[in-house]
């Protein structure tokens, strides 16, 4: 707590919370908080990736066979969609910082649309797998010596992609919310920390998918 800022209390902007001395401190706290949160997110997904790695070490052939059951074309398109959306939201935050309100809203909404289309494509994938009897616990029927390893793979597949899709869904909702607030002029060159942190989250969701893609879709394609 700084004595001088108490005197400057008159100049405190409305969004400045009382425990902070000035907007810069608030921004630093929020940003650090977001990064720490992202570190925990990495470890949440990390459990699934670690389980995946160990099961794949135990059953390399089964995992290759299982991966061939996934839809690589859709997976690749989904990856491209997420990468593009990541660049759009980065541009959107840039537009907020520059005060280009309409461009910012358009870019954020485009990000949300790409995110939603990702979810729709994933829905198609899940449907296809259901019809091919690839859903452990509900409808799983596969021939061959690797059947059990394939079932293990698909357990992980649903946990990983399901948890990731949940993140995408939350991201889309938050981004739409931010876009609305930008449209109403809540954010601009003087205050852009919340949109920036939303973008950080979205990039992390993208990064997770960057690793999901080769681990789920690309194993055993050459075999």
């Amino acid at each position, binding site marked *: 707590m700084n004595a001088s800022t108490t005197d400057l209390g008159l100049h405190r902007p409305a969004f400045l919370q009382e425990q902070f001395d000035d907007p810069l401190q608030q921004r630093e706290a929020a940003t650090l908080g977001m990064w720490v949160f992202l570190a925990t997110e990495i*470890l949440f997904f990390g459990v699934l990736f670690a389980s995946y790695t160990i099961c794949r070490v135990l059953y390399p052939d089964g995992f290759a066979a299982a991966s061939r059951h996934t839809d690589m074309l859709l997976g690749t398109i989904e990856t491209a969609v997420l990468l593009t959306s990541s660049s759009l939201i980065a541009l959107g935050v840039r537009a907020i910082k520059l005060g280009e309100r309409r461009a910012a809203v358009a870019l954020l909404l485009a990000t949300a649309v790409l995110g939603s289309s990702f979810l729709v494509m994933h829905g198609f994938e899940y449907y296809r797998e259901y019809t091919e009897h690839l859903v452990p616990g509900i409808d799983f029927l596969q021939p061959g010596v690797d059947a059990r390893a394939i079932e293990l793979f698909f357990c992980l597949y649903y946990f990983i992609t399901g948890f990731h899709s949940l993140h995408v869904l939350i991201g889309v909702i938050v981004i739409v919310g931010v876009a609305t607030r930008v449209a109403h002029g809540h954010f601009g060159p003087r205050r852009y920390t919340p949109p920036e942190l939303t973008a950080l989250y979205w990039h992390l969701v993208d990064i997770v998918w960057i690793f999901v893609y080769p681990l789920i879709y690309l194993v055993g394609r050459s075999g």
Partner: protein
Amino acid sequence: MSSADTPHVTPARRYLWVLAALLTLLALSAGTAFLKLGPFNSIINLSVSVLKTLLVMAVFMHETGARNLTRLTSALGFIWLAMLLALSLLDFLTRAVLPAPW
């Protein structure tokens, strides 16, 4: 307050170049997946993923100009995941598998 008045922005072109690079890398990993490279399939795929991640973190997440604290925090999750993986793999990779006793 000065930083809030004149926010630092990255040129739009840089974002688009990075997007182009990311999509190229995506094509690279998708393409090489069909070549018979043995273990190198996975090595290439995962290296590409690491590269993509570094690009996203450096440019989209603005880590090139960030404070050391931010960089350290962003690395923390990965470092801890690496510890989890390394030590649990140590078990799975060095196990003497007992042959079935039949």
